[in-house]
């Protein structure tokens, strides 16, 4: 019974650690993906009397990813019935050019203002619409989300350290007598720690496999997919090689480190 509870205490500790660690990664990845989506949707509209060259603009504002002309054909088509073709032709010549500027990343409020001033500094540009208010709101929302993820990660790390120390104290108490007796009969460091190493390695491996399975299966479940679609978010698939490898590696490292501390703590008798 004591042995079963001992196994469970290790498995649960490692499971909580790995699950939280992977959850932080997942949220971070979803937020980053959402940020990319916002960047793709965001654009600054520029009104210019002359044609704008992408290369020249990029020299002044490096974060510009692309520039595309907004066609005025739709507006002119709408006015077709109310105006004579001569006036329409004159209007077409007089009408300035509209451009949509896409950026590589989401700039903050200050940067948007700098970009605006740089663009206004160009003689041909007459007006700029940055949609600053809408953009600012979204930017702040993303920043809040990311901050929350980091705070969550910090607390997870804190709880993980507490769990490790608690487990080390339990192991020291549980195995002190056995390891001391083995030392009195001449057992080497690895011989007396072997049982603890074996137990923690197997339990940690089991926990990491359960976490990997959970993160592989969960995104494929109907409920999760519907929920993600409702929020317009994409849950990235679990990378068994990289993420799974990291989780298994981290759990093995955790167990080896914790057992070594215990064995060293019990030390020489």
């Amino acid at each position, binding site marked *: 019974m004591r042995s079963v509870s001992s196994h469970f205490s290790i498995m649960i500790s490692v499971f909580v650690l790995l699950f939280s660690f992977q959850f932080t990664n997942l949220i971070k990845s979803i937020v980053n993906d959402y940020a990319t989506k916002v960047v793709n949707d965001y654009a600054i509209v520029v009104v210019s009397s002359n044609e704008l060259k992408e290369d020249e603009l990029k020299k002044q504002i490096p974060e510009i990813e692309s520039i595309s002309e907004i066609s005025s054909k739709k507006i002119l088509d709408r006015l077709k019935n109310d105006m004579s073709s001569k006036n329409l032709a004159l209007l077409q010549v007089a009408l300035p050019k509209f451009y949509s500027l896409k950026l590589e990343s989401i700039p903050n409020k200050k940067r948007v203002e700098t970009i605006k001033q740089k663009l206004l500094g160009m003689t041909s540009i007459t007006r700029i619409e940055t949609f600053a208010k809408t953009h600012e709101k979204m930017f702040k929302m993303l920043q809040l989300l990311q901050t929350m993820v980091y705070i969550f990660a910090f607390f997870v790390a804190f709880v993980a350290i507490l769990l490790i120390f608690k487990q080390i104290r339990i192991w020291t108490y549980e195995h002190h007598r056995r390891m001391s007796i083995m030392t009195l009969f001449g057992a080497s460091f690895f011989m007396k720690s072997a049982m603890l190493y074996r137990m923690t390695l197997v339990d940690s491996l089991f926990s990491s496999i359960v976490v990997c399975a959970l993160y592989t299966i969960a995104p494929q479940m109907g409920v999760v997919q519907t929920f993600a679609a409702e929020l317009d978010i994409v849950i990235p698939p679990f990378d068994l090689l990289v993420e799974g490898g990291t989780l298994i590696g981290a759990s093995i490292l955790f167990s080896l480190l914790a057992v070594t501390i215990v064995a060293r703590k019990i030390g*020489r008798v």
Partner: protein
Amino acid sequence: MEYVIKASGLNISYGRDEPIITDASMQIKAQEFVFITGKSGSGKSTIIKSLYGELFPNHGSLNVCGVDFKNISSSKLNLLRRYLGVVFQDYKLIDEWTVEQNVMLPLIIGGFSKGVCTKQAHKLLKHVKLLHKINKYPYELSGGEQQRVAMARALAHNPVLILADEPTGNLDSYSSEVIWNLLKGAKEHLGTTVLVVTHNIPSTLGIDYKHYFLESGVLHEVS
């Protein structure tokens, strides 16, 4: 190796306290049966502890089974302990291991195969009349039975030297007899050197022995 234990001018203390043992010297030859007697608190257990390296002398020289204790390394001490059979006053059995596993401990540490370990454990448990309790745990046994298991464990690997700390203290006459017969048998049949720390030397032992008396931390050889 003429002497199994060679100690000269030993001073032993716990931490920085006053020495428990002062200027102790003894020379024990191979295959000798030795008693150290003395009153409670005279330092008998302290001497035993120093012989298997749980305590180290502050002064003097100590050599056990050809191993000098001066600046002894951890690995050398481990190696020496594999040649010793120790019977502790508080038995020191591993609670989560069965009787069989406890007896097998020195053999496992010695690197013997599972078959050899099992065979030897069964043989010794038969000697101590506990073969029927092979799968029991120490907490399921009486004090006398636990001491017999500890004795079987001390003999399991045919040690060069047996160190027994009050092996029959608080035991019934049956368990005491079993233990004395085993210690006698180890000396007579296996040529093992035996050092026993006790209050009283049994009158019916029937073998030659050497006797040291410990009084106020000073060791005297009784002729």
